[in-house]
């Protein structure tokens, strides 16, 4: 058959996939075996018992459900903000003409080069002044703010290929700048907006540094995981449980929305390619 992959491809790719999945298998197995066995290595088969002890301990000892709720709040709010505002900014920078456009764009994109660590001290002092320490907004604001650089850049790049005739057709049809954005650009820019959403969600869900510094009791999962790990005893099984719980959400999100990473631009204006 034409276009059929050669036979050796499948075992080769399979082997690579196996290497990829080994850490995850290790994580799951670690969470399900008693600590006495894990010390010999999670792969050791001298003794093999499966137990849910670690899961029960973690569930009892740590406020996992609450941390899950905090994580969700932080990640969802700091994802929605750039999903709404980045396309609007990208549209304005790409299609509208106004004073200082270039300068403003450079200022926003410049935040690209700003690492998290740099903003921690000044932000910490600001939040302390404002009494925002241990308030989830102390994390959401920098999460959303720092995302604009790449989010605006990503959507604007996508709009580079956006057919200008569509904008002009809408203009002839009587759309002002806002109507053009809502009726024409937004419905045809779902791909980059979804990409912004997925990337930002992953980043904020997995974010550790800012929550650890700014939050005390309102801890998200990642910070809680760090706390579990912080204890001196050998509790690798419990750490594995926490890690699985933390990882499961981004994994699901990725599996559900991965088609947005592969979907092509939906902006064909109807001309013959």
């Amino acid at each position, binding site marked *: 058959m034409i276009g059929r992959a050669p036979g050796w491809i499948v075992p080769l790719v399979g082997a690579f996939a196996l290497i990829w999945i080994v850490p995850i298998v290790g994580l799951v197995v670690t969470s399900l075996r008693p600590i006495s066995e894990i010390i010999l290595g999670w792969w050791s088969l001298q003794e093999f018992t499966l137990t849910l002890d670690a899961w029960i301990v973690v569930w009892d000892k740590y406020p996992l459900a609450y941390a899950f709720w905090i994580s969700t709040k932080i990640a969802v709010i700091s994802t929605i903000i750039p999903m709404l505002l980045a396309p609007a900014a990208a549209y304005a920078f790409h299609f509208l003409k106004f004073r200082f456009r270039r300068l403003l764009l450079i200022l926003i994109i410049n935040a690209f080069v700003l690492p998290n660590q740099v903003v921690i001290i000044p932000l910490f002092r600001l939040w302390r002044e404002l009494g925002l320490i241990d308030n989830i907004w102390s994390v959401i604001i920098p999460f959303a703010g720092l995302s604009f650089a790449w989010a605006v850049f990503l959507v604007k790049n996508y709009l580079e290929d956006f*057919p200008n*005739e*569509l904008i*002009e*057709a*809408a*203009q*002839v*049809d*009587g*759309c002002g700048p806002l*109507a053009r954005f809502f*009726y*024409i650009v937004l*419905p*045809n820019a779902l791909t980059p907006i979804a990409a912004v959403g997925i990337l930002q969600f992953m980043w904020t869900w997995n974010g550790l540094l800012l929550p650890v510094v700014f939050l005390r009791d309102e801890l998200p999962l990642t910070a809680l995981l760090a706390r579990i790990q912080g204890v001196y005893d050998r509790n690798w099984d419990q750490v594995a449980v926490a890690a699985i719980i933390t990882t499961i959400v981004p994994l699901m999100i990725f599996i559900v929305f991965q088609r947005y990473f592969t979907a092509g631009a*939906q*902006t*064909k*204006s*109807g*001309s*013959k390619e």
Partner: protein
Amino acid sequence: MATLELDGIKKKYGELEVVEGLDLSVEEGSFTVFVGPSGCGKSTLLRMIAGLEEITAGELRIDGERMNDATPVERGVSMVFQNYALYPHMSVEKNIAFGLKMLGLPRDDIKRRVAAAAETLQIGALLKRRPSQLSGGQRQRVAIGRAIVREPRLFLFDEPLSNLDAELRVTMRVELAKLHRQIGATMIYVTHDQTEALTLADKIVVLRDGAIEQAGTPMELYLDPANAFVAGFIGSPQMNFLPVTTTGTDAGLRLSSAELYALNVVPDGAGWGADMTLDLGIRPEHLQVGEDLPVRFDINVDVVENLGGTRYVYGSTASGKSVIAETRADAIPRAGDKVTVGFDPVRARYFNANGQRLRHKLAA
């Protein structure tokens, strides 16, 4: 329906002047075609009329009213784009209705007008489809539907047929002509295809380098071109240009050429003189293979293009000048043959070295 007047319209991008002080008036209900080679400013001009491009200087009036800074809707124009520009996320019906929705028309009104437009263009069966599910010709109809549904004062077409295949282009050309007769609106059409211009237009405006070379009816431009550019651009295949030299006086000049033919010309207007080198322009359809026309010379045949009903003979003269002649005879010359071609001097047009037309009386 509307009249359009352009008064000293200019367009500059920085220092670059792409449209230079253009005057034109378009009559109510007429079909005007802007034609010219790429980069001549015809699309820019159309976009300025549409309100998509700022006018650097001059005045644009629709029905006598200054419209330089008006939005497309205030101008009452609608436009069909070269690649259709259908909204990909909307059904055909919504595409057509979108402009009306933006105008805030009542739902029933919109429905009725969309149905009427669909009826006119015979796209009723496609209303629920997306643009990606349509063929090129269907997309073209939808784009036209989107334009007519608004009942604009002025229709603008920007090379609407250039994305269609040859056969469909001919069909759509006829349909556009019918549509114009049916709705009687003022239409302005941009194309680089002189066939479209000749077949569709009431008035053709030939543009080059941002200026009007000539404006007139198709037959005026075909029979009475103002210069060599228009003469060469209108008509297909292109007009032949053959160098000739003049001797004699203003009252009567003798033209002779390297091809060993000669004829007499009585000047009618300025620009003529003795000892000049001119271009004699003769269209391929007037340069016939055979011995029966008054002015004759020989050519060596390079290629023969057989179109069935007629054939074009591509050849070169004794002095190496390429010419195209026509023959309707069944005996087809072959490459390498030497054939005699001839023309009637009545059909000849003369141009000076700058390409300006030199008018003449038919020699007595």
